[in-house]
């Protein structure tokens, strides 16, 4: 019987505090008794956007159906488009009524906020044929890995593609047509022992590069990752070596297992 074990590692930009981390991640284990699928989401707020943390939090909470309760969208294009509209309306409804200065007001009205999105649903847990389906806007990436082999990378970006993809979920209604058009879908079948990695662009770009040159080292190493201090050290080392750009970093790992976890990490 398959089940999920999920862990999230994250790290702010070098020089920023943990409170300034502008990505977001969350998961819902689902409920096989009601048929509610499990969900995972990773969102990357744009550094130059307005109030990224609020927009990212809103997207994560809603995609998981936490706030507003029951707002989790189906992943079909039409349902996602409706959700984009709901999110934009909610952003406006919860907008500040006063601004600290004319620059903030201009940023809110003219630029708004923007985040990339990778949302994933996992069906059939507890049954013989679990499978995932996912939606993406932008360069947050899902890797479906079996052993040291990537079965699917979604979206299928090359290392050179990162930073050039302008897609994401925008607060501006004028972007909604493009969001609907550019929304990408993928799906895959899962087996016990498979792993899904959901990664924001800086770490995903590094994973694409290293996964190409040294997959036998990369994927098992990421699969053995348990403590956030180890992840923090990896990120710091790769940044120092110039192999990972200085950006907020988020990595969610979803293990498809047949049993409960045999390891519990408690961090001080």
């Amino acid at each position, binding site marked *: 019987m398959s089940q999920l074990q999920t862990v999230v590692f994250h790290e702010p930009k070098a*020089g920023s505090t943990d409170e300034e981390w502008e990505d977001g991640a969350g998961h819902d284990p689902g409920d096989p008794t009601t048929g509610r699928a499990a969900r995972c989401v990773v969102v990357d707020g744009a550094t130059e956007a307005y109030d990224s943390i609020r927009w990212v939090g809103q997207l994560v909470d809603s995609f998981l159906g936490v706030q507003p309760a029951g707002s989790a969208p189906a992943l079909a294009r039409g349902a996602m488009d409706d959700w984009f509209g709901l999110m934009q309306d909610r952003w406006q409804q919860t907008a*500040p009524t006063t601004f600290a200065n004319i620059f903030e007001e201009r940023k809110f009205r003219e630029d708004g906020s923007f985040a990339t999105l990778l949302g994933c649903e996992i069906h059939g847990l507890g049954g013989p044929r679990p499978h995932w389906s996912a939606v993406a806007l932008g360069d947050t990436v899902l890797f479906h890995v079996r052993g040291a082999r990537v079965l699917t990378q979604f979206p299928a970006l090359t290392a050179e593609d990162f930073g050039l993809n302008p897609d994401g979920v925008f607060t501006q209604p004028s972007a909604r047509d493009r969001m609907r058009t550019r929304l990408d879908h993928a799906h895959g079948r899962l087996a016990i022992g498979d792993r899904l990695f959901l990664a924001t662009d800086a770490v995903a770009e590094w994973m694409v590069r290293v996964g190409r040159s040294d997959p036998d080292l990369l994927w098992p190493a990421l699969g053995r990752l348990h403590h956030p201090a180890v992840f923090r050290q990896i990120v710091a080392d790769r940044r120092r070596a110039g192999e990972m750009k200085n950006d907020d970093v988020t990595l969610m790992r979803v293990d498809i297992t047949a049993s409960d976890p045999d390891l519990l990490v408690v961090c001080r």
Partner: protein
Amino acid sequence: MYQQTFSRSAPGCIVFLVDRSDSMQQHWAGSGLTLAQGAARAINKILLELCVKSTKEQGGALRCYFYVGIYGYGLCPSTGGEGVESALPGPLAARGIVPLPELADHPIAVREEPSVDAMPTRSKVPAWIDPHHGFRTPMCLAIATAGAHIYEWANAFPQSFPPIVINITDGMVTDSPYDGADLGGWAQRLTAIQTADGQALLFNIFLSPSPGSGVWFPATEANLPHPGPDLFSISSPLPKPMVDNARSAQIQVAPGARGFAFNADLAMLVKFLEIGTRFDVRDG
């Protein structure tokens, strides 16, 4: 080189040199403005964009991603004579190069314009410099003055993207040679200032009051009338981030392109400044 992103720990430095000589009173064809008015408007627009870019969270202060300096040459409004002086407003002028959040707090005026989002409100648009014109064109002294300030800035921020100096002029230099060096010599001294990320960049934009086809980011001085070749020769090659900016603005740039525009109209000036001042902010 030229890889550093802009952040609070590694801010950038952008310095404008503005020709305030007598010829800047000429009307800019098609704009309804004089050259001096158009230059001031373009700089105010870019400063506003930098301020908006530096705004992050609700209720928060601007973040210091940029330091800014503005120097006028020709008429010095504070004395009424010819020379070079900081065009920063009020008390900031004495400091030369200041953090953008401080400049944001000191506009000389805040005007109202129709809101761009069709709301029944009007946008407030700050201005930091006014147009002025008079006397000749002491461009060497302007570069020397700016160089002294950016030298200090580069020493204070050795890991930052190197300073960017953008010279906006319509005239022939009138003080070359100055203090033992000609215009090319002063430009060399300026661009010898460096951070760990590269040498200071000097870009030049030559304004023309006549309508005509301007040239921007040329890779050769061929076919440029006087003083185009001189200004081309002192202009820095465009580093990769700006080549990318130009290409994303649908402007084709050849290998070896320099940060130079000739016979620019107002739209070209604004676009040129945008390409020269648009950077990734990676806060930290």
